[in-house]
């Protein structure tokens, strides 16, 4: 693998892992869902 390959792979993996971790962290630390109310 050449330098370009390392760069693209590292950045791509960092992006996908980073966004997934950010998204799930935000989701799981959001205020709890309340019980149903009507529309």
């Amino acid at each position, binding site marked *: *693998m*050449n330098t*370009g*390959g*390392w*760069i*693209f*792979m590292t*950045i*791509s*993996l960092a*992006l*996908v*892992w980073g*966004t*997934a971790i*950010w*998204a*799930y962290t*935000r*989701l*799981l630390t*959001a205020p709890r*869902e*309340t019980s*149903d*109310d009507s*529309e």
Partner: protein
Amino acid sequence: MSGKKMEWGTRVGVILAVAGSAVGLGNFLRFPGQAAAHGGGAFMIPYICALVFLALPIGWAEWAMARHGGAKGFHSGPGILGVAGRGRLTRYLGVLAVLIPMVVYMYYVYIEAWCLRYAWEYLTGGVQLNGTITEQVAESARFFGEATGTDKDGVLNMSALFWLVVVALNIVLVYRGLKGGIEKFCQFALPAMAILATIVLIRVLTLGTPDPANPEQNVLNGLGYLWNPDFSKLTSFETWLAAAGQIFFSLSVGFGVILNYASYLKRKDDIALSGFTASATNELFEVGFGGLITITAAFVFLGVSGIGAGFGLGFQTLPVVFEQMGIAGRWIGFAWFFLLFLAAITSSISMLQPVKAFFEEALGISSGKAIALVSIICGLGSFWVIWFSKNMVALDAMDFWVGTFCIFLLATVQVICFGWIWGVDRGAAELDQGALMKIPRFFFFIMKYVAPVYLLVVLIGFIAIDLRPKLGTMQPVALWTLLIIGAVVALLVTVVAIGERRWRAAGLDLDGKQP
């Protein structure tokens, strides 16, 4: 409207269900081949552009229109797009959102049966390839043809039995409803897929250089085969078309699934972060696993000549790869094919559900009757695919016309509905409602101006590059398949007409006239 109210159990549940719909065979088999063929690492540039300027905005638009339509009592494409598009034209164009999951399901369950068959064979020690690598490659191809029935037409093959099992599983899961069926299953399946993918990934990345006689066939070079950039490909329109196609195919955008799944959410439920998280989950599987496993494993043992794409890579090349792994190969093979099976079934149940919901709400029938009706129609279609299995002619025809062309069409309809008829301001307000993340405002500019243009360019490019050659080379079976698709469209249009009358009689706001 019929039946008891369906709803999701938890916030994470709907995300895992949408992610399950998106994560499928394409993440592991299609993405690596597309990336390697269209510039390697450089493919990530058009890929991320398509993600940011097409898939994410259109995905968010789907979530918003779906929740809005769901609040008015609609849970299928015709109803929801009739509301968002304010009238009959978009209501009937919404037929695409039922046609696509319905027809794709017909051939997808067949492929799902292959995955289960292979997983079973590995579990029971049934896949044994002997001799030199060349002989093993030939044997693997023979096994594939025999196991899947693609070596000849007709249904008398063992995979037909697995098809029955798979269809029954799909029906049971969808019949059990959103909370008790789809959500519960995805809450098990997605983490299981992550674990199985990690196991296979670790085995692949620790392969080193298994054959001292071919030292260039090693893990780093395998990774390099996919990731080394070839910037010259970026000047080719086909590369940008391939990236857009891959993103659509991968994220289930323009599929009719999100339109249904998100319609069961309440006004106070978040859709902004949910849509983003589902997409992020899909990308994790696609780039984080698909981008590292498949081609690397094939390269390490078979070199450049062993690299294929799609079904060939997944079902013919990889069994040869697993054979080189010794005793562990059987278990890695099982992990791989069971992973593919879980990826496939979480996608197929997401296709069955919107079709069932459509028949329920258009005809006013019970969940059980709707599932029975859908199962019969899809069963007949699937039977057609299995019968004309030689070289997958019927499957390819359905995949091209409905699984690719119609998806681009539906996405175009959706983005125009959202940006130009319902309106970006109304859409933005809907997305902000209950939002756990603030969508940057420039995305609404993208939804209104950039996405439609990008999509039209992709559609025109697709017609010019892929469609015209296809029309010139259609075999009789493919033509008959197209006719069958036409018959399904006619059926769905008729059901929409029946539904329209019922919805008006029930006083529903089917044209979106009320706020």
